[in-house]
Every structure is written in C-alpha cells, then in structure tokens.
C-alpha cells in the first residue's frame, strides 16, 4: 500500500510545488507592475517591441481569415437563403472568437517566443544576475515592463485582427461575390452589441494577453541557461500558451455567452 501511496504523494507534492512557484512568480509580476509608473518609457518600448512588430502577421492573418470566413459563410448561408446575414455572422465570429483566439495564438508564436528567448539569453549571459548584483531587481526592471507591454498590446492586436478580418470579408462578400453592401453593414450594426460582443471579446483578449505574457516570461526566467534550455523554453511557451488560450477560451465563452 505504501508503495502505491508514496509515489502518488510525491507527485502531488511536486505538482503543488510547481503551482506554488507559478503563483509566486505571477504575484511577483503583479507586485512589480507599479514600478513601471516611475519609468513608463520602458513599457512604451515594450508595446512597440511586442505589439507594433507583431502587426504584420496580425494584419496578414486577419485579412486571410476574413477572406475565408466570408467565402465559407456565404456558401453555408446561401444554401438556406440567409446570405444577407453574412455580415452579422462574420462580425460575431471575429469579435467574439476568432479575433481574440487567433490573434492570441499568433501572439504566442511571434511575441511570446521572442520574449522567452530574450529573457533566457539575458539569463544565460548573466545579465539578470549582473542586474541583481547591482541591487536592481530584474523582475521590476525587465519583467514588469514586458508584462504590461504584453497586456496592453494583446487587445489592440485582437481589435486590429477583427477589423482587418471584417474588411477582408467585405472585399470577398461585397466586391467579389456581390452581396449588398448596405445590408452587409446594417445587419452588422443592428445585430452586434458593443458591450456584450465587442466588450467581451476585448476582455477575452486581455485575459489571453496576461496568459501569453506570463507564460513567456516565466519560461524565459526559469530556463536552464544553456542553448538547449532556451530552445526548450521557447517551445514550451508556444505549447503551454496555446493550450491555455484554448482552455480559457472555452471557460470564458461559457461564462460570457451562456444565456444566449
């Protein structure tokens, strides 16, 4: 019996230790966020590095998703004579789900890996240790501005993804297929609730921003300071962030839209 319980207890303790470590790290990040008020330029630089430099992939992907979504929805809706609802369906799909989720997945791949590699290499090059020895807390100077930069950038990127996606859908539906432009925009205007649909989409993207940036920073900060360690950490960033985004999306969708 003891042979069964001992490994189970050891694994449980190990899991609790890992969870505790994550929770402590998260609390440290939150605790150090106010320090950025003293040096706002650090967070602004991170919004540029994380957000601005992710624009290309977000815009390109949003456009492609808008194109495909309009085509697929037109084929499906026209079969039931409901092609005039195309604008509404595309908009709701984008602002409620695809915008926040796809942009977060792209964010994890583009900005998350970049953050992990940057922090991991700073650790390998003893830059974080040097900062610590200078009595400068790297969590305050390096991690907190990046955490804020990620949280600020993510919803902006998700909004841009949705906006570009809607424009892409307009191009395909109205300009190529010939759906009535007035109908496309008016049904969207009447069927979409700014707070309930757009607002919840933004809340989702903020939560995803917290998840992606936290995972990326944690993996970078806790990485083994070797080339293999950094490579492993960047891979883990993408895998863990993606799974966490998908799981959290389900939870948030259930909470936000369960009454419709």
């Amino acid at each position, binding site marked *: 019996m003891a042979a069964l319980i001992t490994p189970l207890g050891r694994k449980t303790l190990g899991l609790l230790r890992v969870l505790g470590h994550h929770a402590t790290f998260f609390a440290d990040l939150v605790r150090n966020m106010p320090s950025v008020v003293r040096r706002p330029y650090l967070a602004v630089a991170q919004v540029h590095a994380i957000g601005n430099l992710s624009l290309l992939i977000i815009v390109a992907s949003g456009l492609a998703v808008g194109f495909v979504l309009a085509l697929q929805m037109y084929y499906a809706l026209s079969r039931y004579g409901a092609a005039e609802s195309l604008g509404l369906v595309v908009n709701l799909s984008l602002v409620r789900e695809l915008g926040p989720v796809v942009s977060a997945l792209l964010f994890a791949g583009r900005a998350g890996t970049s953050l992990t590699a940057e922090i991991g290499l700073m650790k390998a090059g*003893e830059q974080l240790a*040097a900062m*610590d*020895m*200078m*009595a400068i807390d790297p969590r305050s*100077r390096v991690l907190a501005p990046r955490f804020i930069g990620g949280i600020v950038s993510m919803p902006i990127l998700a909004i841009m993804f949705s906006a570009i996606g809607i424009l892409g859908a307009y191009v395909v539906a109205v300009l190529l297929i010939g759906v009535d432009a007035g109908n496309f925009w008016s049904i969207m205007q009447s069927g979409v609730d700014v707070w309930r649909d757009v607002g919840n989409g933004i809340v989702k993207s903020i939560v995803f921003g917290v998840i992606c940036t936290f995972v990326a920073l944690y993996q970078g900060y806790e990485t083994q300071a070797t080339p293999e360690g950094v490579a492993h950490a960047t891979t883990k960033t993408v895998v863990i962030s993606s799974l966490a985004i998908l799981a959290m999306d389900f939870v948030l969708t259930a909470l936000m839209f369960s009454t419709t």
Partner: protein
Amino acid sequence: MTRADPFVEIDHVIFGYDASRTILNDVSLSFERGRVTAILGGSGCGKTTLLRLIGGVFPATSGQVRIEGEVVDATNREQLFRLRRRLGMLFQFGALFTDLSVFENVAFPLREHTDLDETMIRDIVLMKLNAVGLRGAAPLAISEVSGGMARRVALARAIALDPELIMYDEPFAGLDPISMGVAANLIRTLNDSTGATSLVVSHDVQECFTICDYAYLMSSQGRVVAHGRPEELSASEDPEVRQFIRGEPDGPVRFHYPARPLAEDFGIRA
C-alpha cells in the same frame, strides 16, 4: 585567519548547490580593507561560488558571511540590496547589456540608483570610461567591442557608483597578454585610487601575484590549503601549493579523474 580591519569575513562556511556535493568545505577567509586579495584555485574549486555567497546570491549551508560585521542574509532582499549598493562585481564574461551602448551600460546603475541630471551622468560615465581607457568607445554598441574591451566596459560599470568592495570573477580569463596586463594594472590602480577593497578570483597565478597584497589558495575539495603574501606562497614547500603555482600536471591534485583501473576498462589481463 582573522587579520586586521577585515571588510569581508567568511566564517566556517559550508556550502553545496545540492545535498550530494559540497562545494565549500568549512572555509574561513577575511579580506582586509583597502587591499587587493586574490582567491586562487583550479576550475570548480568554488571560487566563483564564494563571490556569490558574499553577494548573497545563495545562503550558506552553515557558517556566516559578514560585510563590515553585518551578517549577509540571503533571504532578506532589502538588506541584500542595501549591501549590494556598496559592492561592484565584474562578471567573468562582462554580463553587459547587449541592447545598450557602451555609454548606456556604464550609465545604467547611475540612472537606476541616483537622481543625477543628464549632464552629471554624462560626466561621470566619461570619467569612468576614461579610467579604463575607453572614453572614445562610449557611443559603440556592445557587439562592436572586443572581449578585452567588453571586460573593461564591465569594469567601468562596476565602479560607476564608487563601490567599497569590488569583486572580480576571473578577470584575466580569455584575454590576450596585452589585455591581461592592462586588466591587472587597472585592478591595482583603481584599488589604490578609490581606496576600495578588491577581491580577485582567478586561476592565473602570475598575473594575480603581480597585483595582489594577499592570496588564498583553494583546493578542489573546497578547502583553503594555503594563504599569505605572494612571496610567502611562492616560497612555500607545500606540495599542493608548489604544484598549483608551478602549473605541474600531476601531484597532490591528480591529472586523472577518479576511474576504474586502466586494465579493467580495456579488458587487459594481468
């Protein structure tokens, strides 16, 4: 081993990164104020670990590290940061911030710890860079400076706030003979001109002996095997001291890592 007016004291310290391997085994040393003290020893004998214990990066398993009589408590970050503001450390590979220029690297601790205006920061940074002979390199990116220059930039950064204790981790490793001589002279000159206490961790006996006032020799078992002034250590008849100072491949410190008998590994019968 206590000497007059020690700035740093290491008192019967035992330390290991994990329970299975002891790195420092009941080590006691003291570093006198205003002097250059060298800690010599082969790779892996715990020299760098000793610097990390002084800086409070890790807590000692047992024993105490004291700076001016104050016990370093690695779990008390407030105390650590207060103590670390009085220390400067030169890392083995410089640990310069690669996203900042030479100037900004040296300005970094000044910007973080002081409210000096830009003109004052500029003057201090250029003075520190001038002290290490790199005033002209201020606008360069870190990727544009050589290994030896990077070490000097890191030294300028380490002394930016005029620390009372400067710790050098392998300052001569990987340097060409000219850069090595320059680095050694700088350590001595800076120590004498600023009145700081300097602690040099190295395995380069000759270079250390030319600049240090006192030296400790550590064994691979993490113990202090000898200490004294350079001339005393040079004259020592202790076999381990002689082997290290003369760079003999075999002696009390074995050339071969412990292994099974050669005949057994190669399947040779007696």
